[in-house]
């Protein structure tokens, strides 16, 4: 199977959730770009009503240039007020069986609350809810921390997490060890939760070094959300 084809096994609606700063947005943007490259009709909905900065809508012009429909606030992508003003357009792609949908949700259970609003739209359709995990974030350093976050998000969204993503990183300081050490912790959480690890997402230079046989498809990512000077 070619890299990326595993994404075709994911259900049409992909809900990307996780702890603050786990890398949900970077994963969502990379995932949307890969789907668009394969020629799919892709909609990326930025449901982040928690963070004021570093949201996928900041890259709207770039993503739209790649043929991806970006949906965010009803007041426009660059409207910088922290109001939970989500565009009702979000429902359109969810209902359209030809659209591949990525819902980039805000951090923690607080950010996931917004999903309850769309519960009726999502529950009777094919969806995957993927939890992005970075064990270098204080609250998800342990198996218990990861399990707590998965359950808290499931509780507020009333939807089930169907996959974990090992996205453990230290930005440009990420090493092979960073990812492999995290894999052990996430694997244990995966077993206890009975939720598979679906992806290991990491920067290209580290992705190349990862050994075979790890649980989860290796998903190399580019840091689109981080400017060169950061």
């Amino acid at each position: 199977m070619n890299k990326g084809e595993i994404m075709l096994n994911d259900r049409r609606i992909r809900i990307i959730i996780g702890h603050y700063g786990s890398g949900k947005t970077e994963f969502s943007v990379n995932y949307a770009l890969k789907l668009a490259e394969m020629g799919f009709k892709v909609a990326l909905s930025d449901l982040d009503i928690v963070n004021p900065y570093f949201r996928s809508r900041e890259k709207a012009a770039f993503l739209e240039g790649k043929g991806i429909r970006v949906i965010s606030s009803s007041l426009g992508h660059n409207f910088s007020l922290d109001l939970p003003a989500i565009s009702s357009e979000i429902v359109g792609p969810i209902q359209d069986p030809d659209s591949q949908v990525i819902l980039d949700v805000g951090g923690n259970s607080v950010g996931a609350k917004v999903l309850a609003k769309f519960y009726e739209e999502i529950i009777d359709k094919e969806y995957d809810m993927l939890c992005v995990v970075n064990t270098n974030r204080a609250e998800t350093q342990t198996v218990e921390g990861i399990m707590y976050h998965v359950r808290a998000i499931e509780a507020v969204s009333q939807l089930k997490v169907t996959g974990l993503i090992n996205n453990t990183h230290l930005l440009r300081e990420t090493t092979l060890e960073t990812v492999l050490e995290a894999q052990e912790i996430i694997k244990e959480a995966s077993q206890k939760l009975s939720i598979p690890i679906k992806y290991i997402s990491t920067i290209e230079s580290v992705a190349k070094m990862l050994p075979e046989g790890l649980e989860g498809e290796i998903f190399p990512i580019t840091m689109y959300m981080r400017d060169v000077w950061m």
Partner: protein
Amino acid sequence: MAKVLMKGNEAIGAAAINAGCRYFFGYPITPQNELPEYMSRELPKVGGVFVQAESEVAAINMVYGAAGSGVRVMTSSSSPGIALKQEGISYIAGAELPAVIVNIVRGGPGLGSIQPSQSDYNQSTRGGGDGDYHLLVYAPANIQEMVDLLQDAFDKADYYRNPVMVMGDGMIGQMMEPVEFKERPEVDLPAKDWAATGTEGKRAPNVINSLFLKPEELEDHNIRLTEKYDIMKNNEQRWETYNMEKPEIICVAYGTTARIVKSAIDTLKGEGIEIGLIRPITVWPFPEKAFVELPESAKMFLSVEMSMGQMIDDIKIVNQGRLPVEFYGRSGGMIPSPDGVVGKIRALLGGAK
């Protein structure tokens, strides 16, 4: 200790608690809300107290009270919220109390925007409140430096009995970076024998006050404060230099803007164009020592800011008329790009406009 990935605002909270801060009084405002949120969750775990006050004015006066009892106390806000705290900050400086104030700066004036900015330079370096006082003001450029300076901020506040401000633009508060909390040697600080902690009938009461009814006493107080500020000016200047061997232009930039400038400098170096950087780490006192000896190659200064040129005056003061001072900046929450800085430098050097 291993590195963890932290958002700037969370890292400030963790660093403050590490530095012994046990009291936090604040009022929410974007883009620093993760900091009071962190303190509300973490301070009770270490026997500390978090209070969300009814306003910024109330919060800074709670800081005033706590500082008067000698504890390590902090407040945080963002630009318009810091503007509201100025009266209390002046009282704290007047009463010679240690406290740490964090400002995660957003666009202004007025309510402005929630996007990053550096337009509180004048507010923090000129004294937003009344009277002859100064704050020691740190302006970190990354989260690790923010964490390290937070510890210094508490130590210096205690040492000088003066409020210390740590100022980061919104980007510093919101961005994620790997950080390490290093073990630091204990700093030898004088006992807080001035604190109002109860006399138990054994000594005369300590009085915490900024009111002086006799003019000669207030003048004496101001002379003493000024002597203290002169010592701070001499001992507390901090800066970093970058590519200062033979620069044609010397950029001056602080905080995240300095990182954007470094990126521009690296690009131009690849083309054989040498540009230097002086990065103030303290914006008060302004690092005038960095400007005493200038490389002969330098033709001009370029102030790069996320504001409309508030730092130009300080550069002109330390420049003492030697070189022209130019300016490049973005404001309102717009962030200068490395390409924008490169373009300005090319134009100044007479290249493509």
